[in-house]
């Protein structure tokens, strides 16, 4: 009975759970092939930090693809904004608390500029953002031309990409990061409480809910997962600032997309722009909002990357846009519009970075790495389309 239920639930939700399972399988394979190095605390911590700057782009790209557009300019925009941040800190002498809001604002404005021809003139976003790709690439070269790589020496800025949250200074458990452990426990408790309250609400409205045993299994499984990640991170340096930023961004965007009027409007525009317009939603306004947010997240991605390298380089941001798009598709965003979850895209980003990291540890050549990642992307999209069709 239990296994029949489990089978049924898995079959019905295969699309949603598919990428989690895929991520798990990929990590398991690498754990075996690298004799455990892949799942070491150090490597996992590194992996999450590497995912950061792609993950925030993937979050923004999710919204862009949901409304049936694309933004190719984000990679070099991130690179360019990183360089602007570096210049602001090292040459203009701005404080990090001024420089960061400033470049985030520049990013948002850049996004609105990409959005302008799309919203106002109906120009395909592919073309508009390709123009942006060229322009930001050029601007990045112009600002780094004289000096080459711009070194950033501001310790506060560099901590964003390399630092970890402080620990609670008490004597117990000397080898672990106590604040990280505490946050992990809080996260598990909050997760369990919100799931139970959601289930009660659904039961009250007679909606279909998971069978009780499966529900408990799901709670245990995800709690263990959060617990395991927390434990591994806590036994190294704890949560990094990059992961904190990533979690905050995902949290905010997940909330906007699932709980607010704006999120509903974005999905409506993606699902059927004509019906949305006739329902009193300004499609133009949504295009501006989505592209503006994409620009701001590009700036954040640029900050994370520059901070991680502690410098701005002439090639920063190269191919970020394609990694972000791939992450979104692997994470279940539909090119037909109206479908896609922010959390899914972050999992997609983790899948893609895990592949790179794992294959690097195995010493696989870079050429093979591209082939494997391409194959995984194709498989993910084919799987998505096939399950979508089956569910019709």
């Amino acid at each position, binding site marked *: 009975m239990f296994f029949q239920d489990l089978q049924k639930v898995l079959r019905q939700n295969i699309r949603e759970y598919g990428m989690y399972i895929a991520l798990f399988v990929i990590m398991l394979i690498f754990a075996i092939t690298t004799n455990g190095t892949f799942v070491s605390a150090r490597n996992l911590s590194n992996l999450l930090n590497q995912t950061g700057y792609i993950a925030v782009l993937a979050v923004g790209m999710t919204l862009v693809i949901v409304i049936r557009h694309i933004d190719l300019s984000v990679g070099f925009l991130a690179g360019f904004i990183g360089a602007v941040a570096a210049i602001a800190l090292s040459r203009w002498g701005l404080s990090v608390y001024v420089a960061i809001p400033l470049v985030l604002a520049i990013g948002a404005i850049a996004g609105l500029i990409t959005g302008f021809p799309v919203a106002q003139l109906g120009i395909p976003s592919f073309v508009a953002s390709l123009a942006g790709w060229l322009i930001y690439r050029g601007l990045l070269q112009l600002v780094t031309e004289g000096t080459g790589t711009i070194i950033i020496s501001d310790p506060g800025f560099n901590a964003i990409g390399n630092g970890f949250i402080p620990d609670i200074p008490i004597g117990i458990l000397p080898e672990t990061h106590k604040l990280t452990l505490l946050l992990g426990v809080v996260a598990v408790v909050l997760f369990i409480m919100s799931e139970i309250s959601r289930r009660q609400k659904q039961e009250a*409205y007679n909606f279909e809910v998971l069978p009780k045993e499966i529900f408990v299994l799901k709670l245990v499984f995800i709690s263990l997962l959060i617990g395991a990640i927390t434990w591994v991170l806590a036994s190294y340096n704890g949560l990094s600032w990059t992961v904190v930023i990533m979690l905050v961004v995902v949290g905010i965007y997940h909330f906007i997309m699932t709980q607010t009027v704006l999120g509903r409007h974005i999905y409506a525009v993606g699902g059927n722009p004509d*019906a949305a317009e*006739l*329902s009193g939603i300004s499609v133009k306004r949504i295009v501006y909002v989505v592209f503006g947010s994409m620009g701001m997240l590009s700036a954040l991605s640029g900050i994370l990357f520059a901070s991680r390298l502690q410098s701005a380089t002439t090639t920063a941001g190269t191919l970020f846009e394609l990694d972000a798009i791939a992450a979104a598709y692997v994470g279940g965003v539909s090119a037909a519009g109206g479908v896609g979850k922010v959390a899914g895209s972050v999992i997609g980003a983790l899948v893609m970075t895990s592949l790179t990291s794992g294959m690097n540890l195995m010493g696989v050549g870079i050429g093979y790495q591209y082939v494997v990642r391409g194959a995984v992307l194709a498989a993910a999209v084919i799987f998505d389309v096939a399950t979508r069709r089956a569910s019709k």
Partner: protein
Amino acid sequence: MSTPILEMKNITKEFPGVKALNNVSFRVAQGEIHCLVGENGAGKSTLMKVLSGVYPHGTYSGDILLGGEVQRYRGIRDSEHAGIAIIYQELALIPELTVYENIFLGNEIRNGVLVNWNETIKRAGEMLDKVRLKVNPAAKIKDLGVGKQQLVEIAKALSRDIKLLILDEPTAALNEDDSANLLELLRGLRDQGVTCILISHKLKEVIEISDRVTVLRDGQTICTLDAHKGEVSEGVLIKHMVGREIDNIYPHRAEKKIGDVVLEVRGWNAYDPSLGRQILRDVSMNVRRGEIVGVAGLMGSGRTELAMSIFGNPLGYQIKGELRVKGEPRAFRDPEDAIKAGVAYVTEDRKGNGLILIQDVKENITLANLQAIAQNSVIDSNAEIKVANEYKTSLNIKTPTVEQRVSNLSGGNQQKVCLGKWLFVKPDLLILDEPTRGIDVGAKYEIYTLMNRLVEQGMSIIMISSELPEVLGMSDRVYIVSSGRVAGELSIADATPEKIMHLATN
């Protein structure tokens, strides 16, 4: 009668829940112009789709004989091959290509693998002479007017060896000169031996040009009339087209309390820049509180365009004229403005621009008024479910839960979701565009009952409909729209199917 070139015998075509064609027989003689008339939904288009292979052999029952031989088309290519050419209302030309490229598109004159452009241009010139069109064969289609494009379509058809030329509403988009010109050409072609089937709503031109006329009604052949025996007149045609008995499916409204004017347009003109055509001319109409106003008219007469132009003009027409809501002059920049002013519009095309099919029932119902279930723009999901369940109950939407995707619902239930969505904005005026198209009789009755309940509560309704019985059964007053103009206004006491048809077809 001379030998039939085409004979369609006992054609029956069913869609889920609907018999679109019921045992239809249709004979066309060699070298005649045969008109096919009937109301919207009578089955004309379906019959032509069966003939042209859009609905392939096996999806219908009955036989098609062309020149005495049984035909079994698997697709449009087969029917084209057999010599049947159809010219649809929506022209199938490629705007960016030249006239000669379009004429021989898919039928290129070749030297081996290469196109012989010189021969193509020469032959295109001959074809243009045949349809008496004086344009440069190298002109691009987009630079020609609609009337000339129509002639290019005919030239394209004639460039193949055709046995039968079918025109679907060829003059719907043409002005009077172009129409007269086209009819003249068809006569000329007939005299050269081309057989032609013409589908038209304009009864005057039917009478003017046809040798014989077949009338369809509700998927059945009513009669075939011979013009040369004096059997064809407007009165006779209308009688056969609408002569169905009106079943008593319209619920009675308890009491009528008709109040002040809620919405009014005066001297309302709209020009569609993308089509380059004036679509509404000098329209004046109004609707009062507690009133159901019917808008009758044939497809393409400008009914939907009228609704769109009033409802915030999302398609970007250039509008001139005056719009008043409860006496106040208003201008709606977008549908949002219209909704705020208390106007709601249930579109004709549920799936195209009414619903978001990939979303569930509750999300569709609340979409146009999310602020009502939100606090500080955060949606209260309990309130949302409560609202959706209220409409599920009050409109009798048949769905297991409000979390069901609307694509899984039947047409009638989808329509109820649309209605629920627009009732939730609590409008003063509800514009319904073909509210019962494609839904079964039971659901129709429920929708009519709901309309009565709403006007009794003081709402106003504009009901656009192609179905005359529905217009006559539900309205307090009827406007008849034809070619973008109001051709007439009738109180329900004066309105008869014949009068409405007469106004709509002029």
